[in-house]
């Protein structure tokens, strides 16, 4: 059986997905990146290889996420695509005719508008680095509750409290204030979900036409309180795909499948890369006052990739056989 591998290396999580010819997920992994993208990627590859049934051959691979070039070089990916494209592709493969993708992860939030199956508009959170996902994690731990209980508790709310959710700092102090006033926890949590949704729609979704079918994905989609808050605010039914937190990797796998079917060959280097010795190094170039921090990827002792230089002096010095698309 032929299969395709999709890899999403982000700053918070690294996800791997293996799909079959019909784009069904055979296997998927969600790992914390912990600031070590290469090691995490290799760990995921090893896990995947161990689980792989004998009769499967991997016919193509694709990467996405902020570490997509790094992962693409290490694995020999057939396509390297940004997160907007991969998330859009994945959503419309699960909910055909998707018109809106709401995506909230640990760090970034985005909205993607699709019309006739192609991306016609998108936006990502512009500045605030305090991601909604990590903020919710923080609040759950401040309230001494497992994050899994957050959503179900919020669903019990009768009258959600209005929380000022302009930014995480305001939201937290307002929540504490409302707790002190004696509001019950479900109402506060539901209020927080509504505040976060309001914030998302004002800052990310600004001016965009949100139509059904809408798909909600990313780590935060696990929270049923958020789903309900979205439905209330938008007056639409919100779909949450089964594999909501690995959609980027799924999209990359689907694109890799399309690409290799077109070209007939794959550059995928196989799972042995999980055991090769890679490491990232780097230096500050003193060639000019830009003082670029040049990142280098070594395989054994050999430099296989470089980037981070503004002038191209270093990145161009390595013959790039793979064309990065």
């Amino acid at each position, binding site marked *: 059986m032929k299969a395709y591998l999709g890899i999403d290396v982000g700053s918070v999580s690294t996800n791997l997905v293996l799909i079959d010819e019909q784009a069904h997920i055979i296997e998927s992994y969600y790992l914390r990146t912990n600031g070590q993208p290469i090691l995490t990627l290799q760990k995921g590859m090893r896990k995947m290889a161990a689980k792989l049934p004998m009769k499967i051959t991997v016919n193509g691979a694709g990467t996405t996420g*902020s570490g997509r070039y790094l992962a693409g070089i290490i694995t020999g990916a057939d396509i390297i695509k940004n997160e907007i494209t991969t998330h859009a592709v994945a959503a419309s493969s699960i909910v055909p005719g998707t018109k809106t993708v709401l995506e909230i992860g640990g760090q970034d939030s985005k909205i993607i508008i699709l019309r006739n199956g192609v991306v016609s508009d998108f936006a990502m959170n512009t500045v605030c680095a305090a991601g909604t996902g990590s903020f919710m994690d923080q609040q759950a731990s401040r309230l001494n509750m497992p994050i899994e209980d957050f959503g179900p508790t919020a669903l019990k709310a009768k009258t959600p409290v209005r929380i000022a959710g302009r930014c995480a700092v305001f939201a937290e102090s307002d929540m504490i204030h409302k707790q002190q006033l004696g509001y019950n926890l479900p109402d506060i949590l539901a209020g927080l979900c509504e505040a976060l949704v309001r914030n998302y729609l004002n800052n990310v979704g600004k001016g965009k036409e949100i139509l059904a079918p809408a798909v909600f994905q990313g780590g935060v989609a696990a929270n049923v309180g958020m789903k309900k808050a979205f439905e209330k605010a938008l007056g639409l039914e919100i779909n949450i795909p089964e594999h909501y937190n690995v959609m980027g990797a799924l999209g990359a796998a689907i694109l890799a499948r399309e690409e290799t079917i077109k070209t007939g060959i794959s550059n995928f280097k196989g799972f042995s890369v999980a055991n090769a010795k890679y490491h990232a190094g780097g230096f500050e170039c003193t060639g000019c006052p830009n003082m670029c921090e040049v990142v280098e990827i070594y395989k054994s002792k050999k430099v296989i990739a470089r980037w981070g230089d503004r002038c191209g002096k270093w990145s161009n010095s390595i013959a790039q056989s793979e064309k990065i698309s």
Partner: protein
Amino acid sequence: MKVTFPHMGYLWISLKAMLEYLGVEVQEPPPTTKKTLILGSKHAPEFACLPLKLNLGNFMEAAEMGADTILMAGGCGPCRFGYYAQVEYAILQDLGYKYQLVVVEPPEKHISEFLARIRYITGGRPWWQVINAIRFGYIKARVVDDLEKMAQWRRPREIIPGSTDQAFSAALQLIIEARHPRDVPKAQSQGTQIMNQVQVDERKPVVKIGIVGEIYTLLEPFTNLDVERHLGRMGAEVNRSICLSEWINDHLFMGLIKGTRSSKEARRAAPPYLNHFVGGHGQESIGSTVLYAKQGFDGVIQLLPFTCMPEIVAQSILPGVSADLDIPVLTLVVDEQSGEAGTITRLEAFIDLLNRKYQQKEVLA
């Protein structure tokens, strides 16, 4: 007296030429780098916009190299920029720097006001010399702008990656080295020749993107994370809505030099979306977007430093312009927190989107 000034793209080339021609000793700050940003943001108010932080860093770095007098523009109107000179000066004083401050306010009515201020700095040089010096600075700005435009056209079409940028910096060096107005034409023709040697694929399909937004962010590549170069490498031809020489002509010469693009056209194109001045270049951002749409550009990118008020006004109006005139607009907010990976993702996704539209257009045509 050793005069310094804040960086804003290639402004330093013009200013240095002008001042040195008048016999003023100049110490331009080292190019803006991460070190500049770290220095500046450490001492600037958190919610000030990026330009203030970088100006401050520039001054601190220039002081290390012996600068003792700051030449800085002032301004008026709703944008905070007008009092940056004073705020920056006060911060520097608190930090113990021994700087002199000379603020050049843009002339309100006539170029003679501007001339008088320049003459003041140079200690009563004869008028003809002052005028020649200003002309010298302006000519350099124009030549640099022309070379930049060549680079913007060549970058997406270059055959050897990076060759345009290499040629451009070589050409720029010639302009910098020109010591006298009469040396500029030769430097320009040599520079042009260097640019023309970059091999390009003229038939390659490229998308065209207009860039609008706050002037400092537009002109200073460190601030905008080098967006023009990234776009070029991704196969997009870039047009910047404000170039240095146009800005000088508009704001310092009061439009004295005819036949160049002027911000007036942009302002005239802004209504009915934005009918009046909102400070900074807010109105121009809207107007330029309208003009780009009419000129058949494939997309527009708006650049603004976090907390910039005029651009926030423009940002909230742009979705309407974009929908009416069917031109995709991407807003990039830059700040000391901005990461390169996130910016590149946004740019790539935007180019993907434009390419798809472009192909559709081709099919229809």
